[in-house]
């Protein structure tokens, strides 16, 4: 019997072509418009302070200096020179941390903090900083070699950024690129060579090798590489992704609004009475409507996700998580829908459904982040979003998009399931009471 009620409701739903157009096409249109209109403000909206950067040192200064001395000694040993020592004024680590990162201009852009790899990863995950720069093993040794010896060793610095700090990663990459560009500059190489070489070599030997070093430097610039990476598994959320998710979160509320009118509509059409005469209880009618609303939600969300993937090139992955997200969201929306429907039927007018559609959905859209990302709104909104169904749905799908682990999304799943259970339960109670008062005539008809 439930299947018959459900199939009838789906048929009625599908026969309303105009309504379906609004449910399915409108979110696509709005997603496209908002994505293009606000694409420039995504990544790190509102962040103007220096980018907080973790510096992870994967090298041992003393060991690498000793290693370099050994290499350099071997390099010049054939010529009977005395054992080499490094001048304290030419400390590559000092050059990097004090001369480069301590520069006022750089400090205005970057706020570096030395951390271990574990600390940096945790800070990145917790969103307390935006970028991690990992200096590789051999970072000091290779720089000495590149400066002092004719050899050139590539240095691979890795920059890892939080997806929410898209511009920050690019800024850090650019600043560090400038540093290495400078190192590659053969004039500086020459000056450094002369300054360092004069300490260890006789003038004849120094200048005898100068031409070779300069020409080699000129012809074969050091291939220092900076690789920009995101946190493993996390992806940048651009405007297309954000608005596909946020419009989805908002428009499924209209499914709840549609459902909100259904029972009273059936009552006014007398089809509900006709069902009751045939022996159908309100509860079953409600269950059929619940499943119909779930179907509508699934259709809406699937269509928008498909559209975002095909047209806006949003790279959804984890199809199982997407599917589970759709189902949990749909259950919650259907719960809210049947609750509104039960109240509307009891009130015997569409006022509650109208208020929900014309006012509450827009309030939820604002506090849930469907119109504007909550990052740019006061902190209060970060709490308020949990009072909006769409806010929870948006959180869930942003996490899903960024490949969050199942357990990381448990709070959202739990909240959606809670909403579904509580509101469906309330609707069932209200509808049962209504059925009894209707039958017994304890209310004025």
């Amino acid at each position, binding site marked *: *019997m439930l299947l*018959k009620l459900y199939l*009838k409701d789906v*048929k*009625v739903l599908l*026969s*309303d072509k105009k309504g379906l157009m609004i449910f399915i096409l409108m979110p696509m249109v709005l997603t496209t418009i908002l994505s293009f209109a606000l694409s420039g403000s995504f990544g790190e909206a509102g962040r103007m302070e220096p980018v907080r950067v973790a510096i992870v040192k994967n090298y041992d200064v003393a060991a690498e200096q000793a290693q370099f001395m050994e290499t350099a000694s071997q390099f010049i040993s054939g010529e009977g020179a005395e054992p080499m020592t490094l001048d304290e004024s030419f400390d590559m680590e000092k050059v990097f941390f004090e001369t480069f990162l301590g520069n006022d201009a750089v400090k205005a852009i970057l706020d570096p903090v030395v951390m271990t790899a574990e600390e940096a990863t945790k800070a990145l995950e917790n969103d307390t900083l935006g970028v991690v720069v990992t200096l590789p093993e051999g970072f000091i040794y290779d720089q000495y070699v590149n400066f002092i010896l004719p050899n050139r060793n590539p240095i691979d610095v890795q920059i890892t950024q939080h997806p929410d700090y898209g511009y920050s990663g690019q800024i850090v990459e650019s600043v560090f690129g400038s540093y290495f560009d400078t190192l590659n500059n053969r004039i500086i190489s020459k000056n450094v060579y002369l300054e360092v070489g004069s300490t260890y070599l006789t003038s004849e030997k120094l200048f005898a090798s100068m031409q070779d070093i300069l020409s080699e430097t000129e012809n074969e610039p050091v291939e220092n590489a900076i690789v920009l990476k995101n946190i493993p598994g996390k992806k940048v959320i651009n405007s297309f992704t954000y608005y596909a998710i946020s419009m989805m979160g908002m428009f499924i509320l209209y499914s709840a609004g549609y459902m909100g009118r259904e029972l009273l509509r059936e009552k006014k*059409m*007398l*089809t509900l*009475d*006709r*069902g*009751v*005469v*045939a*022996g*159908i209880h309100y509860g079953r009618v409600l269950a059929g409507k619940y499943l119909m609303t779930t179907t509508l939600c699934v259709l809406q969300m699937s269509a928008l996700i498909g559209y975002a993937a095909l047209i806006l090139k949003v790279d959804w992955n984890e199809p199982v998580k997407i599917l589970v997200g759709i189902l949990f969201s749909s259950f919650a929306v259907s719960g809210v829908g049947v609750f509104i429907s039960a109240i509307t039927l009891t009130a015997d007018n569409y006022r509650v459904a109208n208020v929900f559609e014309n006012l509450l959905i827009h309030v939820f859209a604002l506090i849930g982040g469907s119109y504007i990302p909550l990052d740019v709104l006061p902190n209060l909104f970060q709490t308020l979003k949990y009072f909006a169904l769409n806010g929870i749905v948006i959180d869930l799908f942003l996490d899903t998009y960024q490949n969050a682990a199942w357990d990381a999304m448990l709070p959202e799943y739990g909240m959606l399931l809670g909403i579904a259970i509580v509101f469906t339960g309330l609707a069932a109670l209200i509808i049962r009471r209504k059925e009894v008062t*209707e*039958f*017994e*005539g*304890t*209310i*004025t*008809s």
Partner: protein
Amino acid sequence: MIIAEQLRKNFGPLEAVSGINLEIPKGQIVGLLGPNGAGKSTTISMISTLYKPTSGKLYFEGKDIIKEPKWIKPHLGYVPQEIALYQSLSGYENLKYFGGLYGLSGGELKKRIEAVSEIIGINERLKDKVEHYSGGMKRRINIGVALLHSPKLIIMDEPTVGIDPQSRNHILETVKRLNDEGMTVIYTSHYMEEVEAICQNVYIMDHGKVIASGTQEALIDQSDSHTAIHLKFEGEVTSHFDALKKLDNVMAVNRVSDNEVGILASGNGNSQKEIIKSILAMDLGLVSFDVTRPNLEQVFLKLTGRGLRD
């Protein structure tokens, strides 16, 4: 088939039905007559198990359907006053859905849909959406839905409101045909001529009470000492009402058309002559008059002091 004893229904302080007694014999068409607010719809809603009576007894084939509504549900066809159909679905889809609610499925359901669509004369447009049907066709599908499960009793709540004469005749013919096949029918209407045409028994209700009941003949016999006078005037008649009501022996006046009125007169032939003489003396532009035995309309007029559609 249906017996109601002291059936009463209150909605809050409002007493919609005040302790009525009904007896609907099997195989009959029983008319429930009464103006708006008389309690007809509430009465049939109680028989349909939509409302629980505030007090009284209600039996279907000897079984108490207030305690156990399930006894009547499978045997009851209900035709609501309004079109209770899904407008955006086709006639076929509506019949299929409502047939399914009564447990029909597969070949049996298909056969019943074919049979019912033949009865209601709508099989050619069964695949069209209901919203594209005329008023008469919607009414017919509305009835068809109630026939799918071959009920023993069908309740029709003003099934001919707002439709063309051709569709009305078709519906009345359908009701008679169903009755001929053994179905019991409870039929409510504003239209006295419909009730006169098809009902064997009539209950007249007003203000929540049954004020008269019996066969048409019995009801008319109750008014045997009265006469119906049909008057036709040159112009509009409404302005003459007060003057006509003041005449001796005039019990009630009702408007038949813009220039026609019906008068229910008491007394013998002399009193009727006096009424006609008085009207002629008033010079109201009387064109013709006709003295007849009262019909149900006049019976109702006598009982309630007002016309059914006033």
